[in-house]
Structures are given as structure tokens and as C-alpha cells.
């Protein structure tokens, strides 16, 4: 009887130990693979040939009808501005060079949608993007529920897209 009890106690303890140790170590992160890959020697997030961020600023829509545009980021291959009205943030507008992220460009391949004549996609529930000159991604992201997909499309059209297209050739 005692031996039986000891046996079951042992089983119980080993199961408990197993549970405890498996809980103690955190599960591997969903970003472990990209972490490993992007810390390898020679890995980079931005390629040398990328356009400078500063060269994108002039293609953003001008301030109009009480809308305020505040530039927020300017990094190699990327520029971003915030769109607000009456102190309320409505959207974020950006231009990026897809040379740095080929998958960003790939998503336009099967797109039937067009905005201002350029291939366009809806992404998630807050973003609309178009591709200029097979290289530059122009994106508008809603930051307020009042700013709809139609608003995003309308603001995408206000970028100086045909001038941005010339940047590809220059």
C-alpha cells in the first residue's frame, strides 16, 4: 500500500516538475526567426541604392481646407507625415522605396484596383496603398474611424504622383 502511494507520489511529482519547468521558460517568440536572420553578418533593412527619404517630401499633398500636415519621419527610403484637422490626428501619409522590401511591391502584382491610374491595394482595415513607377509605395493609414477608405483614396490622389514617377527615371 505504502509502495503504491510512493509510486503515485513520484509520478505526481515528476508531472508537476515537468509542468513547472515548461512554464518557467517563456515560449519562443514569433519574431525569433526574423531576429536571427536580421542579426546575421551583412544583413540590412535598407539597401545602399535606396532613394533618400528627403527626396520624397515635396510629393506630399499640400496643406489645405484646414488640414494640417506635419512631417514626422525622414529616414533613408522613407518619409512620413501626419494629417490632422482641428488638433485631431486623422491619418498618416507615407512614401517608401520598395527596393528595401520587395514583398511590399509584390502585393500589388495581383491587384485589379487602381487609384489615379496606379495599381492599388487595401491592406488590413486601416491602410490603402498604391505603387508608382513599379517602385515607390504611397500609403495612407487611417488613425481615426471618421477617416474612411474613401478619404484615404482621395488623399492618395492628392500626392504629386506623376512627379514622383519621374523620380524613378531620374
Amino acid at each position, binding site marked *: 500500500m505504502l509502495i503504491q502511494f510512493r509510486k503515485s507520489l513520484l509520478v505526481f511529482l515528476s508531472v508537476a516538475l515537468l509542468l513547472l519547468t515548461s512554464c518557467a521558460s517563456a515560449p519562443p517568440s514569433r519574431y525569433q526567426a526574423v531576429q536571427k536572420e536580421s542579426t546575421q553578418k551583412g544583413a540590412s533593412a535598407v539597401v545602399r541604392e535606396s532613394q533618400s527619404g528627403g527626396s520624397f517630401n515635396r510629393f506630399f499633398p499640400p496643406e489645405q481646407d484646414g488640414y494640417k500636415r506635419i512631417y514626422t*519621419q525622414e529616414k533613408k527610403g522613407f518619409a512620413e507625415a501626419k494629417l490632422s484637422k482641428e488638433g485631431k490626428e486623422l491619418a498618416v501619409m507615407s512614401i*517608401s522605396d520598395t527596393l528595401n*522590401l520587395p514583398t511590399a511591391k509584390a502585393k500589388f502584382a495581383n491587384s485589379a484596383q487602381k487609384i489615379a491610374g496606379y495599381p492599388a491595394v487595401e491592406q488590413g482595415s486601416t491602410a490603402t496603398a498604391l505603387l508608382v513607377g513599379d517602385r515607390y509605395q504611397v500609403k495612407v493609414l487611417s488613425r481615426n474611424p471618421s477617416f474612411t477608405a474613401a478619404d484615404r483614396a482621395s488623399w492618395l490622389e492628392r500626392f504629386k504622383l506623376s512627379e514622383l514617377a519621374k523620380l524613378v527615371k531620374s
Partner: protein
Amino acid sequence: MNKPIFQLVDELPTNNLTTKVLGMLDFVVPGEWNNLVGFDNTIRAVTGETDESLIQQIGERAVQLYNDSSQGYQRALWLYQTVDVSDKVLASGILANKVGETIPLLGFLGHITPQAQKAQTIDFATKLVVEVVAFCQINGIPGDSIGDFVASLADYSGESLMRIVALISLDGLIPLGPRFLDQALSTISALNPHELESNQTFKSVSSLIPGGNSAGQLNFIGTSIDSVKGWMSGFVSERGLTPQSVLAPLKGIVDFSEDKLDYLAAFLDISTNYYEHTGTQTLARRLIERAVAEI
């Protein structure tokens, strides 16, 4: 190896002395800071997206961007971490106090050496300059004109604004008094490069402060303070901030007497890391904003 960015954001504390002190300063900028922690949480909060595969894509791009050392994000985080001189031993002593009790400053007097006013002023100036440099490392210099850049700086909100409120309160008003900005300017203009070099806080981050040599860096610090002075003094008077107004809520956390403000300032300096804490949050937010726009 340095910790991955997702781990740093996941490990941000939800309840320690730093978060408590920042929480007490909420009255200055109500609702601006809500201690957003966790990498995926931050992605959801910043982008408003809930689709898991999209979150994965955004997170992966943010990780790539952070790990590319040429992009400046690692330098910015290093600045935020390094300028916060914390004392681990003291911090663990504080933790030994029961949760919910106010911490008796008296019990720590023997462990704290208050800084001389001059050193305290250089600390304030250095933290302010670190903010400017880290801003540029993270965001570049947005826009095509000085006006664009200033507009971008003046657009501080959320955890970035809370960091400035804490800087004004904990490193300005409490140790230096209501005229802390004037004092910082006059101290810096009368300082010689050698005195700057010998300040611990400055020394720890000097390798990333522009200016070439310490004389040039001193000049850069003076110019930086001068350029934010207008905005900052406007902010202080607009919100009616005084040493008394920021001290009152702190009484709920630390038990101190008002003739020991230099000790209180030194205590908060070594027992909190609000620059690192909110700096990590700012960095995560900006990385995610860029990542969601680039994918």
C-alpha cells in the same frame, strides 16, 4: 548580445517606482501616457489592426529596422538607457518596502548623495540634449525646412510628452526651482569645457553628442537649450507648473520633508529610469509606424 527589441518592449514593467512616478505626473498632461507595454500590444494600439498575419508582418519589419545599426534606432535606445543613471542596489532596497506603502526618504538618506546645483544643472541640460539627439536618430530630420522640423518637435504627444513633463518636473523644478531654464542657460554659458567633461552624466553619453570636441559640445548644448526654452517655459506657465504643484502628488509615493528636496531629487534620479522606460516606448512606436507604412 543585446536584447531583441520585441523582448525589451515585452519586458517593460507595468508597476514599479518609475511607472508610479509617471502615473502621478498624469495631471500635467491628462491621458497622454497609459504605459503601453508588450510588442504586439503596441502594434495593435499604434496601427489599430487586429489581423494576426498583418501584425506578424509589421512586427517582422520593425525587428529588421531596429537590427540594422545604420538606421540609428539602436543608438537612440542606448542614449535613453545610458543617460538614466540608476542604482540597482538602492532600487532593490526600495523594492523591499511593502507594495502600497509610501517610501520613507529618511530611510535612504545615508545611501544618497545629493548633487551640487551645478552638476544637477548639467544633468538637466544633458538629458535635454539627449532628447534632441535621440529624436533625430529615430525620426531623422523631418521635412524640408527649419519650420517643418520645429513643427515636428512641437508635435510631441503620448509617452514622448510624458518624458518631457518628467524632465521638467524631476530634473528641473524639484532640484533647481521655478527658474530652472534660466539657470540652465546661465550655468552652461559660464561653464568651461573641462567642467563639462568631468560631469558623469555628460561623460556617459558624450560620444554621441555633436560638436566635435567638448567646447563644441558645450556650444551645442547651449544652442539646444536656447532653442527649446521658448516652448518649454510656455508649457510650464500654461500648465501652472511649480515645484509645489509637482511635489504634491509625489507625496503619495515618497514620504519626504520639503527641506530635503535635493535628497528627493537624487533619490528619484537613481531609483527611477523614466528616460529609458518612455524612450523604449517612443522607439517602439516610431519603428512600428514606419514598419506598417513600409510593408
